[in-house]
């Protein structure tokens, strides 16, 4: 028995991918390709001819976010994907764009989508975009609110506003995305994230 050892990207412990020796395999990697493979949209040897206009810059960021979404689309509900796209389109309306603002940073968008795939389930957050292109998601349940800013490198900042009797309780923190639910546990996060 032999196995491939790989480190998963999402820090849930080391996992081994087993490869059983069998008679069916051939090792065929070649340095040169006799036949150039049929390429496609995910090829990385193309670049957009940028005219450096604001509209082109916004379009490129938006398109990159949508193209990346296709890589996880088979794990997403189509209605959820379309809703995120509509919100992204609205957030990137070139006619209402403030000079100096940045379009969405792909890494913060990826962080948000990965959270939704693992813990966000079918919840329906509203999205907002900071001036430097960082994506923020807002969940509301009655008068209670959860706001999470999805930053780069698997980091999140969160703010909770909970109504307890006549009082409003507020809390905030910074953590990694995969520890967000653990941080939010005292505030019953399922009321936001399990909302259908």
């Amino acid at each position, binding site marked *: *028995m*032999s*196995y*491939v*050892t*790989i480190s*998963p*990207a*999402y820090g*849930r*412990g080391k*996992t*081994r*991918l*087993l*490869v*059983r*020796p*069998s*008679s*069916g*395999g*051939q*090792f*065929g*990697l*070649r340095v040169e390709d*006799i*036949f150039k*493979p*049929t*390429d*496609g*949209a*995910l090829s990385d*040897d*193309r*670049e*957009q*001819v940028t005219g450096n206009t604001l509209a082109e810059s916004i*379009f490129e960021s938006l*398109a990159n976010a*949508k*193209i990346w979404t*296709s*890589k*996880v*689309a*088979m*794990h997403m509900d*189509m209605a959820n*994907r*379309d809703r995120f*796209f509509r919100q992204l*389109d609205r957030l990137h309306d070139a006619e209402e764009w403030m000079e100096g603002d940045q379009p969405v940073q792909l890494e913060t968008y990826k962080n948000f989508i*990965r959270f939704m*795939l*693992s813990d966000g389930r079918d919840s329906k957050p509203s999205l907002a975009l900071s001036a430097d292109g960082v994506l923020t998601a807002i969940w509301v349940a009655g008068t209670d609110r959860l706001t999470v800013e999805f930053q780069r490198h698997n980091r999140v900042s969160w703010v909770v506003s909970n109504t307890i009797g006549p009082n409003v309780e507020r809390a905030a923190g910074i953590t990694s995305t*995969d520890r967000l639910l653990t941080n939010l546990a005292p505030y019953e996060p399922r009321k936001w994230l399990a909302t259908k």
Partner: protein
Amino acid sequence: MEDCGYGIFQLLRVGRGCRLFAKPDSWSVMLVTDSPRQAPRPPYSLPPIIEAVIQIVYPDKFAASRADAFRSKLSPLYDSKTDLKQVTAHIEPERRKAEFQDVPQTRFASNDQTDAIVVSPDGLLWTRLAPYPGWDVFAERVARDLKLAIKHLSIGKPSRIGMRFINRIDVPATGDVVRYEDYLAINIDLPPQISSVDNYGWRFECPFPTLGLRAVLQSAVVEPEVPSHLSFLLDIDVIAMNELPADLDSMLSHLEKMRTLKNELFELSIRDKAREQFSR
């Protein structure tokens, strides 16, 4: 002749719990086991295709005015148009020489970026990203655009047709071990002295002379995009370069033939556990 679940084959022999099929005038031999529990069969509800590509290359460049006319006909069919350049480098290390060539291209895409066509000086390339809506939808768009191309570009026979389907199989990383060979039927035969390797990658080419096709299959572990999953690619590229047709109907028939081979190779490359992943 009968349908063995992978297409119409000739039944050669019936064994205990299995049947052996072959396709006359072709390369295919198929061993089908009579499993008490039927694994899902295509079309799958959640196909693992992350990108489907059809590429048609012509021996000569399109006339500039005809290419402009074709692009103007494509514009209303897509939501956006983007000018691209594909950069090709020719490097000769012994002469300390590197030459770069920019090939201008135009990409037309749907608003969600999943449907696109890239028009090059001498070729056309259609792509469909996930979620894959099925062959009929993809082929209908290709046929629509190809009809326009044949009319406005006045093109003859292509020099190459490629059909590439890139699949990514995402396996939930539950527990300590995920058995790779449970999902892919084509494996690397490691000697017992090598008990562990980091990642894997294989690639092979196989000719199908009677079909006039050639296939390149590749697989490798890739960085997972989905949390708590392990991922590996299964990339199937079917290529036609001989005696290619010029008219629309014959081109579409040719694409159908390539698709049949691509599907057979895919089904031969995966196991039932993978099929179950595609049909949750």
